[in-house]
């Protein structure tokens, strides 16, 4: 336990030191980024140790807070989440040092590093806490630290608005969690997590209510579909390394909380599995559809996070169905797929956000339609972004494929042996996952194609250049990790076994009933064949072209007399066939001034896809609430006397009521 506590101490102390040293940008960056990287690497050691089979380590120190105790434990499940947290935090810290450096002239670098290190420390504490009070405190500070990171550029109206949306969403989520922990704590008579799990069987109604509270509370953080509204606002507003961290690992703490909750609530009824699969399908399909329709690169990535959270939840749903039906294969494959996707998504979404950050860094815009042709100017960023895009689309030989493959494999196996009524959600999962994969491929071919291929569409690209080594190195490492996890699939999945045992509560064997090594080896073989084919094709191309003149020409030069950048596909036009097919969900707004007359003078066309949940769900609800609460405004008059009177009266009335 000592290395992790040391790592926490290093994070907090260096964060504080960076805040104190805020006058010197150099010192703040060195302390903040250096401390975050050092602390993360320090914590990575025990996390990897437990992940690879060391026994769980725990520590419990009594605490003055009522119901609270500083009890922490690293078991395999915690370690599985600690690994991406530490890895991505270290890499994003290095990246952030380079990313924030140019802004040192306009504002201090102390606060962002303080909050960054605080955020990392709290994420770590959230996944190792074994006491509800400690957990909730870490959870809240995590939300607040990330809020302050999001509103770094608070002079912009849209950043402030994003910050408020995030703050309100996360507070509402915590309200449900507070109710959840208060309730389960009252039932079990303790706030310690091990008492929750040893409590035995809850009554079905109680377990169901707790499950719903946990799904809403943790789902708000994770970004389940109707509750996801803060994600597409907060991620674009935050600095890119923070977006990577928030999207890559912070929202996963919601998944962690949900998985941990499942270990307390006893044997799951079928409707839990149905609920999780339904949430997974809606988040996955709608998330990727909205991602497809976005014109802002980071907003696109944020929606894609919703999609991937959907895939993870789908895996969890399949796993819960496996436990419910007593089918170990189904449970192992579902949970393994979901949990592996947690790690995978941290890798490739971190990579993509860092890549997007490099693009923003170089061009100063997030508008896809103003970019283009960056491949020639930023080849390293483009290669890394392409790796991430292929991985997130679930294509072999990258890591995204392995996780989705496990979920699909489990669903197929389950659907073929289980009775019809249990097989239906599995069939839905298969169909949904296939749809998500196809749409994701379309979405990311669009993102990569419009941003990096073709010709420059606007002024911003003209001065674009490859970022410095501090920005490139983290992207390289993540890209290599994406390939490595993809190629080492069978062994990586085997390393999940201890975590699966924590989730399922039963030992997990490898072989036909447990971890499916056989099919994964098959996948590996196919991946290697694919790589060999690519290498062979490249060799043949080189052989054929050897000795012949090779010239480079303008893109889109096929037959046009004077090709221009405006003749290319735009982001809207590339997505149009799919967005119009799904227009019933997307409700894309079009503003068009079509060409008129024989000699049309000017024309324009613009599309905008706003979030339907936000526009038609939350906004009217909040406006109605605001109108109702407007009646209470007279209480808020600004007279200090009367505020004191409120407080005094309340206290006296409470005293009298208590004594009377």
């Amino acid at each position, binding site marked *: 336990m000592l290395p992790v506590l040391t790592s926490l101490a290093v994070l907090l102390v260096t964060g504080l030191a960076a805040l104190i040293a805020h006058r010197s940008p150099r010192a703040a960056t060195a302390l903040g980024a250096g401390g975050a990287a050092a602390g993360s690497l320090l914590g990575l050691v025990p996390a990897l140790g437990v992940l690879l089979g060391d026994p769980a380590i725990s520590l419990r120190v009594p605490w003055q807070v009522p119901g609270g105790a500083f009890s922490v434990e690293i078991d395999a499940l915690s370690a599985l989440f600690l690994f991406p947290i530490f890895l991505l935090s270290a890499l994003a810290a290095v990246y952030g040092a380079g990313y924030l450096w140019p802004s040192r002239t306009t504002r201090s670098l102390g606060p962002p590093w303080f909050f960054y290190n605080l955020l990392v420390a709290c994420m770590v504490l959230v996944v190792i806490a074994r006491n509800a009070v400690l957990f909730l405190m870490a959870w809240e500070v995590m939300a607040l630290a990330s809020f302050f990171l999001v509103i770094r550029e608070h002079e912009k109206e849209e950043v*402030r608005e994003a910050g408020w949306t995030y703050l309100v969403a996360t507070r509402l989520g915590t309200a449900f969690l507070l109710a959840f922990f208060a309730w389960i704590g009252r039932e079990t008579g303790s706030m310690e997590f091990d008492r929750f799990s040893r409590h035995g069987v809850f009554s079905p109604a109680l377990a169901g209510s707790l499950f719903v509270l946990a799904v809403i509370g943790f789902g708000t953080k994770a970004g389940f579909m109707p509750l996801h509204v803060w994600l597409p606002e907060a991620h674009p507003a935050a600095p890119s390394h923070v977006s990577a961290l928030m999207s890559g690992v912070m929202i996963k703490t919601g998944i962690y909380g949900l998985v941990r909750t499942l270990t307390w609530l006893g044997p799951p009824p079928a409707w839990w599995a149905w609920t999780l699969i339904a949430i997974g399908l809606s988040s996955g399909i709608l998330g990727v559809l909205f991602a497809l329709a976005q014109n802002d690169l980071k907003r696109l990535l944020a929606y894609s996070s919703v999609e991937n959270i959907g895939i993870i939840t789908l895996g969890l749903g399949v796993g819960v169905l496996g436990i419910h039906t007593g089918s170990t294969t189904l449970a192992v494959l579902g949970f393994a797929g979901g949990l592996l996707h947690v790690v995978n998504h941290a890798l490739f979404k971190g990579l993509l956000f860092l890549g997007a950050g490099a693009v923003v860094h170089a061009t100063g815009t997030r508008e896809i339609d103003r970019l283009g042709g960056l491949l020639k100017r930023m080849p390293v960023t483009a290669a890394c972004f392409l790796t991430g895009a292929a991985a997130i689309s679930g294509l072999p030989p990258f890591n995204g494929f392995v996780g989705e493959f496990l979920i699909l494999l489990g669903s197929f196996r389950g659907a073929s042996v289980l009775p019809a009524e249990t097989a239906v959600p599995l069939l839905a999962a298969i169909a949904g996952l296939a749809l998500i994969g196809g749409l994701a491929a379309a979405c990311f071919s669009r993102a990569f194609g419009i941003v990096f291929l073709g010709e420059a569409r606007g002024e911003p690209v003209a001065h674009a250049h490859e970022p410095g080594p501090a920005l490139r190195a983290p992207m390289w490492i993540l890209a290599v990790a994406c390939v490595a996890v993809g190629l080492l699939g069978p062994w990586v999945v085997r390393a999940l076994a201890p975590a699966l045992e924590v989730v399922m509560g039963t030992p997990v064997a490898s072989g036909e009933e447990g971890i499916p090594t056989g099919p994964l080896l098959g996948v590996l073989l196919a991946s290697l064949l694919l790589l060999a084919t690519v290498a062979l094709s490249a060799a043949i191309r080189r052989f054929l072209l050897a000795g012949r003149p090779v010239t480079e020409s303008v893109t889109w030069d096929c037959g046009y007399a004077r090709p221009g950048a405006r003749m290319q596909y735009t982001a809207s036009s590339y997505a149009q066939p799919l967005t119009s097919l799904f227009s019933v969900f997307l409700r894309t707004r079009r503003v068009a001034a079509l060409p008129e007359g024989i000699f049309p003078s000017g024309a324009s066309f613009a599309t905008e896809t706003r979030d339907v949940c936000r526009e038609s769900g*939350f906004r009217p609800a*909040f406006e109605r609430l605001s109108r109702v609460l407007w009646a209470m405004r007279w209480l808020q*008059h600004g007279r*200090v006397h*009367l505020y004191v009177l409120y407080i005094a009266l309340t206290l*006296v009335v409470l005293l009298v009521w208590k*004594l009377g």
Partner: protein
Amino acid sequence: MNLGLETILVFLVLANIVVLASSRLTACIRAVAAQGIALGIFPLLAHDAALTARVLLLAAGSMVLKGIVFPMLLSRAARDAEVRREMEPFVGYTLSIVFGAAALAVALWIGSRLPLPRATWSPLVVPVALFTLFVGLFIIVSRKKALSQVLGYLVLENGIYAFGVALALEEPLLVELGVLLDVFVAVFVMGIAIFHISREFDHIDTDRMTTLRDWTRRRRAPGTALSGKGEAAGEGGK
């Protein structure tokens, strides 16, 4: 029963009534100062046990601060800000005395019901402490001048102090020391702040200082934010 202590308790009540009834700030400051000195004697008499150095130190410190330093600071602030009287309070002086009588009754009732960890040496001490507390709160609520509010704050602290000494153990004294330090800083800061406010605005009427509240009557155009947070977001940008 201890005659000296009972006398001090009665004195506390009377000082409270002076603060409630007087419009002259100088008189109020003096009453609060006298109250502070009386309270300083309190632990000396209340402790039938040995007079430890700590008790003596606390008594001396509290008397010096409450009886001399605070009144001086406040008098100077009053002189600098050129205020002598509390004109037009929210609640008139007659009504204030009526409130005082009612508060005393409530305090007596609560004192008779309040479960205490240990018996006090006089049945009157808890009601008097509560009464002082109520009066302090009332002064804060009902007076306009910032100076009066500082006085109310001091009276409130006196009440807390009396309560602490009533249940005097060693620990509350330690806590008291902390509170005393807080009050010292608070009065110091308020004294300076009042001076600056009066120089800036030519008055120290707190009822006219509502500009900094976090709500104004304007509403923003719809569609710029999830409503309900919009105003706050707008304010944040100032």
